[in-house]
């Protein structure tokens, strides 16, 4: 394609004088190079547009790669370490060394092993609660938005109540009543208190979809309601569902860490939160045992950062104006070089 345009223009060039050449319109390939727009790789054309948009998004993919690395690291934990996370593996507070890559805790447990195994539970609680909350939000949001009327009134009331009920204090009430709140209890409660936001956004989106032509035509053709919901509305909600899932997972991981940190969790479980709890209780920082605090802290921060990057990508897909804003500087500069006004932006 590029060759043809080039030969065509070069044969044309012979007959054009220099003055005309200066004002000749650049080809779209030259324009794309000047604006630094890359052509999408060919293989993405087989994917659905929103998936393709995600796969070509650098931030989103970086987040996915970090997250996958964390998940693999914790799933394959036994391959990385021969110690048992619950058992004493050496002397207390040994500094990082060859035997103990990240040192040991005050109880003499291997920190590296604990981070790897703790990731299993922390990530499972986070993703479990995040997925469950987003799924509840999806079901309630779509029902409220699609059925409308009395159903909408009642569901919206519950969505608003869940939004105003403070989550963490409610979990504290529940967790303090069951003897020790294991990760499963914390996960369930986080899922039951976290579906307010996704339900709210999905309801608003459904409301605006309900009056679109493709939904109306499906209704006129006599499609069943559940079929319209699953075939027409649900696919359009996927990115909002993903957004809710990612945010729900972040807040669940942070909430699990916070609850375990203040001592509400099961102190015998190994999660990133309980590791921080023991480090704080054992005065790890005061005694200079930084290796007891940093590894779980970094693990939580890395996971959080990865999820935030994925959320950025999802945001740009659901809201194309945010993505357009990334190239705006180049377009402005381009217009100024051409002597056009760039004030419209």
């Amino acid at each position, binding site marked *: 394609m590029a060759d043809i345009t080039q030969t065509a223009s070069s044969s044309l060039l012979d007959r054009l004088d220099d003055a005309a050449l200066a004002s000749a319109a650049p080809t779209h390939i030259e324009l794309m190079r000047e604006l630094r727009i890359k052509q999408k790789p060919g293989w993405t054309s087989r994917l659905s547009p929103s998936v393709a948009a995600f796969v070509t998004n650098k*931030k989103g993919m970086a987040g996915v790669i970090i997250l996958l690395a964390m998940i693999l690291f914790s799933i394959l934990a036994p391959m990385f370490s021969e110690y048992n996370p619950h058992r004493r593996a050496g002397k207390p507070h040994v500094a990082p060394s060859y035997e103990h890559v990240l040192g040991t805790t005050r109880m003499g447990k291997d920190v590296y092993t604990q981070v790897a195994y703790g990731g299993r539970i922390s990530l499972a609680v986070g993703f479990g609660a995040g997925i469950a909350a987003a799924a509840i939000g999806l079901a309630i949001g779509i029902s409220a938005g699609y059925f409308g009327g009395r159903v909408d009134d009642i569901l919206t*009331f519950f969505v*608003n*109540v869940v*939004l*105003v*009920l*403070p*989550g*963490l*204090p*409610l979990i*504290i*009430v*529940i967790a*303090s*009543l*069951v003897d020790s709140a294991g990760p499963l209890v914390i996960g369930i409660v986080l899922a039951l208190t976290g579906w307010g936001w996704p339900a709210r956004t999905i309801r608003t989106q459904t409301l605006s979809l309900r009056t679109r032509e493709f939904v109306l035509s499906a209704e006129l053709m006599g499609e069943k309601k559940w079929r319209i919901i699953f075939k027409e509305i649900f696919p359009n909600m996927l990115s909002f569902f993903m957004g809710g899932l990612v945010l729900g997972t*972040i807040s669940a991981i*942070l*909430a699990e*860490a*916070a609850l375990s*940190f*203040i*001592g*509400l969790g099961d102190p015998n479980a190994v999660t990133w*939160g309980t590791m*921080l709890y023991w480090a*704080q209780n054992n005065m790890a*920082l*005061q005694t200079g045992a930084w290796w007891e*605090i940093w590894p779980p*802290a970094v693990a*939580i*921060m890395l996971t*959080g*950062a990865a*999820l*935030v*990057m994925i959320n*950025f990508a999802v*945001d740009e897909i659901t*809201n194309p*104006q*945010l993505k357009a*804003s*990334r*190239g*705006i*500087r*180049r377009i402005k500069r381009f217009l100024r070089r051409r002597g056009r006004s760039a*004030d*419209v*932006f």
Partner: protein
Amino acid sequence: MLYILRRVAFYLAAFFVAVTLNFFIPRIMPGDPSARIIASFQGRLNEAQIEAIRASYGTTGSMWEQYLGYVGQVLRMDFGISTVQFPEPTSSLLFYGATWTLVLVGIAITFAFLIGTMMGIHAAWNRGGFFDSVFTPINVMLNAFTPAVVALLLFYAFSLQLQWFPLGRAHSTGLSPSLSFEFIGNVLYHATLPVLSILIVSFGGWHLGMRNVMINLLNEDFVILARAKGLSDRRVRYRYVARNAILPQITSLALSVGFLLGGALVTEQVFNYPGLGKFTVTAIESRDYSFIQAQLLLLTMSVLVANFLSDIANVVLDPRLRKG
């Protein structure tokens, strides 16, 4: 006016849902608080003593009677007697702690909202520029760092190592609360690090929220018209775009109050700050159920009040709501 009335009706209903949850959660769980306490005496109690304990926890009579009794107690702000600080009524402890938490969270939320919103306005106005592409992701990632980690690090660096700030408490032991310059200065000095650790993990959210809403508004017709009229950049930025973009921010500000109060829990624990969170943790450790339940009601109430204030702010800022 109708709008405000509708909202007030909703808040009352939401509060009753919270009260009802608070009533039923302990009763559907295996072993209610009174049963626990009775069990802890291992059969050394006689019938009358057992009956007295059950009565003090409101677990005698039919479910309906218990419920009415509980609602009555809540309305009278009578949350029973604390088992930790024994003769003290729970409510006085609750309000003492709430005052200090309010100091922390109040200062932190104000600064986080102002800093985050201003940064968001700046990032959206120069979208795609250096500030936007560097600080927007960084600020939002700070949001995903646990308050526990940030608080521990600040505590370690500035309280333990550099010793610039005190190791805990809300004010020096020698001072008694007064409205003097010295006392307020002392309180602020003690609150600096706790406030900072809440601030660091919360301003990114306001930054991103404001930026995203602003970017969507920048292409609206009214903004283009304002620029075409030749209004100054400043005026378009603050009076036209930011004023509209801030409406959803205020709504989520009110909703985030509950989340922030929960976050203060961890901060207070690290800095040994005598707020609601610190008392709650003590109450959890000693199974002081009346306090744990009361803190949920108090926090729910503060979220509802915050929401009510945000409704009023919305009506003031958005003339469209005044007609509805």
